């Protein structure tokens, strides 16, 4: 699936779940994974050290080849968001990332206002995309 279509698909799921009102725990991951596909669509194709990467997977496989201490794919995406898309996108993306990845540790106890905030952060990220 094309990244932008995938992002929109996840955003639609996010809004659908939010409108129901009973699935705040699912609003967060759908918001985060919509954001992930929006930012990856924005960043790629990406050229670094004279080498062009058409997708994140190509970048991760190529850029970190032979690197002893490579980051996780999620952390690598966060780093690209910071370097290529700037502070505003990075801060909102990192907020969603921390909330999504650690939801298990708060027993998926996502308050309605946190779910609404997640949608707001996704909207902010989307508004900053140029493609």
């Amino acid at each position: 699936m094309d990244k932008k279509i995938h992002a929109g698909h996840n955003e639609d799921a996010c809004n659908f779940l939010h409108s129901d009102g009973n699935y705040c725990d699912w609003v967060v991951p759908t918001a985060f994974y919509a954001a992930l596909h929006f930012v990856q669509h924005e960043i790629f194709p990406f050229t670094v050290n004279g080498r062009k990467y058409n997708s994140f997977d190509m970048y991760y496989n190529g850029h970190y080849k032979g690197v002893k201490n490579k980051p996780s794919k999620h952390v690598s995406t966060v780093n690209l968001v910071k370097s290529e898309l700037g502070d505003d996108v990075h801060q909102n993306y990192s907020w969603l990332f921390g909330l999504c990845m650690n939801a298990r540790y708060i027993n998926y106890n996502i308050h309605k206002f946190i779910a609404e905030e997640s949608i707001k952060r996704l909207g902010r990220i989307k508004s900053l995309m140029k493609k």
Partner: protein
Amino acid sequence: MDSNQDFNIDRIEDLLKSDVDEMLLAYETGWSERGIEDIRQAESRLKTNINNTINYIKEAVSHFRKLDLKVNGAYIKIERVNSLSVIITVPVESFIDEKLLQVYSFTHSIERHSRSDDYRVSFSITYNDGSINNDALLADGFFGLMKPVNG
């Protein structure tokens, strides 16, 4: 635990000692089977990396305080000898405070400037409104570092 309870970061090392020992013990289990030849060197590297990470957590917590944001927990996980993850928890009102966004730039700067072949740290932030699941954290390898100040 009161999720709004603040913490005394100056006491982290004292409070941490047993946690670090437990963390090392957990990590070292099966070490020889994993084929690490120079256990002493790896253990030394690991301890250095844990201490560095604690110092970075202190820097991050100080930054929260500068922004008048409270922290109510910090958890550390050894992903590999040269890679650690940190979760910082805050009260829910701090989590939705716009000032929190500034912290992500600060922790990213720590991550970027400290990274090498021998060390990598990754921070993430979530909220703790009293429903933190310590069993889930521990099951995933995260050890709690900060304890509430009494009185």
